[in-house]
Structure formats: C-alpha cells, structure tokens
C-alpha cells in the first residue's frame, strides 16, 4: 500500500489546515499560544505507530480518543505525557482551583477539551472534503503507545498515520495530535483527495 507524493502532500496540507483550527480552539481554552510542528504523514502498522508515540521518556501517556465514521473512518487522539496532565487541566480550569478539585475533574476536563479540539480537527477535514463524519463520544485512555492504540479499527493492519507535535507556550505542556485511518478508509480518502485536486485544477482553469 503506497500513497503518491501529491496524495501525501494533500493529506498533510489538509491536516495542517485542520490542526491550525484545532490549535486555535485549544488556545481559547488555555489562554496561551499553541505552537505546532509540521505534520508528518506515513503508512505504518499499528505497532510502528505506537513506537512513534511512545518515544523514550513518553512511556506513561494519557490520551483523549474519539472514533470517527463516514466516507472514511478511524480514530483521532490527543496525546500527552501523563506527567503533563494535571498541568494541562490546571491551564484549562484556572490556577485558583485546589489540587483535589483538579484531580476530581481531571478526566472530565480532558474529555471535554479533547472533544472540542478533536472535533475541530476532524470537522475541518470533513469540511474540506465536503463530506459528513460522525464522531463517537470522547474516552480518556492511559498507558503506553501500544495500549493507546489497542482496539482501534484494524488493529494489526496498516494505517495512515498522521502526527503533529504541539506545545503550549509558557506552560511546558507538550503533546501530540494523531490520526489513524484504516486502509479501506484510506482508499476512500484517496478518491476524495483526487476529487479535491480535480476541483482545485478546474477552478484554477476558470471553470
């Protein structure tokens, strides 16, 4: 299974647009600028994808996960080191709350924040392709990279893996936004990318 350079470029560019919107949502929630890396797009096995996420020092991870379904389906994850979790929740809820309240609200705050960011990310991709996607409710997962990806659609299959680092300025909070798409979906995605490229070409030709 391979994707052509222009398809990879198109997926990365559309993800770049989508993550820009998602970062703006996160910025509104935490009140600090969100710095983004350039997205990387690859066809990997789940195993390989989990290794990318579980880099040295990233063993204990926490993730908000939502599955999406429609013309293409897969799983979107907002992932960060567990050590950053309370700090992120504090950034979301405000500095004045006592620690015990923050601990109580941790999963709820993460799920809600993840929901806003992941919806913004997936919805922007859906809008670019002019197709509707449905999103599952967010779940909060803890574990290493392999555990986070367990049970995803097509567990042992190849997936399209899209990966972007983010960092919240002045907060020392880092994380990743990842998208796993299964291969039957990827076929559909290729068709949509091609349609999108055709539209771009036609528009440019003045039609």
């Amino acid at each position, binding site marked *: 299974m391979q994707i052509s*350079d*222009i398809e990879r*470029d*198109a997926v*990365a*560019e559309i993800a*770049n*647009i*989508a*993550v*820009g*919107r998602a*970062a*703006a949502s996160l*910025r509104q929630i935490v009140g600090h*600028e*969100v710095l*983004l*890396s*350039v997205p990387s797009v690859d066809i990997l096995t789940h195993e390989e994808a989990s290794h990318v996420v579980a880099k040295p020092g990233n063993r204990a991870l926490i993730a908000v996960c939502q599955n999406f379904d429609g013309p293409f389906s897969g799983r979107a994850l907002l992932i960060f080191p567990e050590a950053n979790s309370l700090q992120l929740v504090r950034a979301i809820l405000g500095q004045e709350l006592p620690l015990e309240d923050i601990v109580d609200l941790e999963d709820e705050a993460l799920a809600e924040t993840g929901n806003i960011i992941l919806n913004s990310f997936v919805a*922007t991709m859906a809008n*670019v392709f002019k197709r509707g996607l449905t999103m599952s409710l967010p779940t909060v997962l803890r574990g290493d990279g392999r555990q986070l990806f367990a049970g995803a659609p097509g567990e042992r299959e190849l997936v399209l893996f899209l990966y972007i680092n983010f960092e919240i300025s002045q907060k020392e909070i880092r994380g990743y936004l990842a998208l796993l798409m299964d291969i039957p979906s990827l076929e559909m995605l290729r068709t949509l990318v091609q349609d999108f*490229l055709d539209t*771009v*070409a036609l*528009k*440019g*030709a*003045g039609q």
Partner: protein
Amino acid sequence: MPRTVLVVDDSKLARMVACKALAKIHPDWACVEAGDATQAMAALQAQDVDISLIDLNMPGDGGLVLAADLRRKRPNMPIAVVTANIQDEIIARVRELGATFVPKPLTEEALSAFLTGANLRLRKVAQ
C-alpha cells in the same frame, strides 16, 4: 500593470491552489513558486518579485521568520501570511511585521482582496 507574486509553501497542493486562484483573478500576473524559505530567498535574488504569499507552518525557517527577512530586504513589498492558525498571537505577529493575515483554506475572495490592496500600495510607492 502585471505583477509577479512569490508563493512560498512546503505543500505543492497549497502552491497549486494559490497559483490557480491568482491566474483566475489576474491572468496576466506571474506566479513564482518556492517550497521553503531558502528557495524563496533564491527566487527573490533571481527575479523581480512584487508581492509575496507565505505559508506559516513550514520546515526550516517558518513563515514569520521569512516574512521578517523579506520585510528587512524589501520594506515596501506587500506580504501576506497564509495560515489556518487563527490564534490571536499569530495574527498580532503578522501585523507587527506589516504583513496581511489571510486565512487558509485560501479563497479567491480573500486572495483578491489582498491583491487589490497590494496593487494599490505598490502604485502609491511608485508615485
């Protein structure tokens, strides 16, 4: 008078979108493509460029660094930074550089509005 527009984006697709939209709005204008900041600076040396459209999130020097370099070299060049990253800090930094913030996905309307303003500015400078 026809202008030359430099389009800097690491995505070929994004460059295609920008150049096609430009061709539709101003068929007689020229579009020069660059895939990163280094190529952009080389293009600037090699030919006359009137206007620049720069992507924000690129490998190597990002769009803001490139826009600052361009601004130093060409104080009067109309520059747009094109991005979906609509965070207040980004928009503020783009404006500090005397550049225009243009949201992605790039639409013909947004590009046309920027180009009209850019053309007026260039005419004013030439007077």
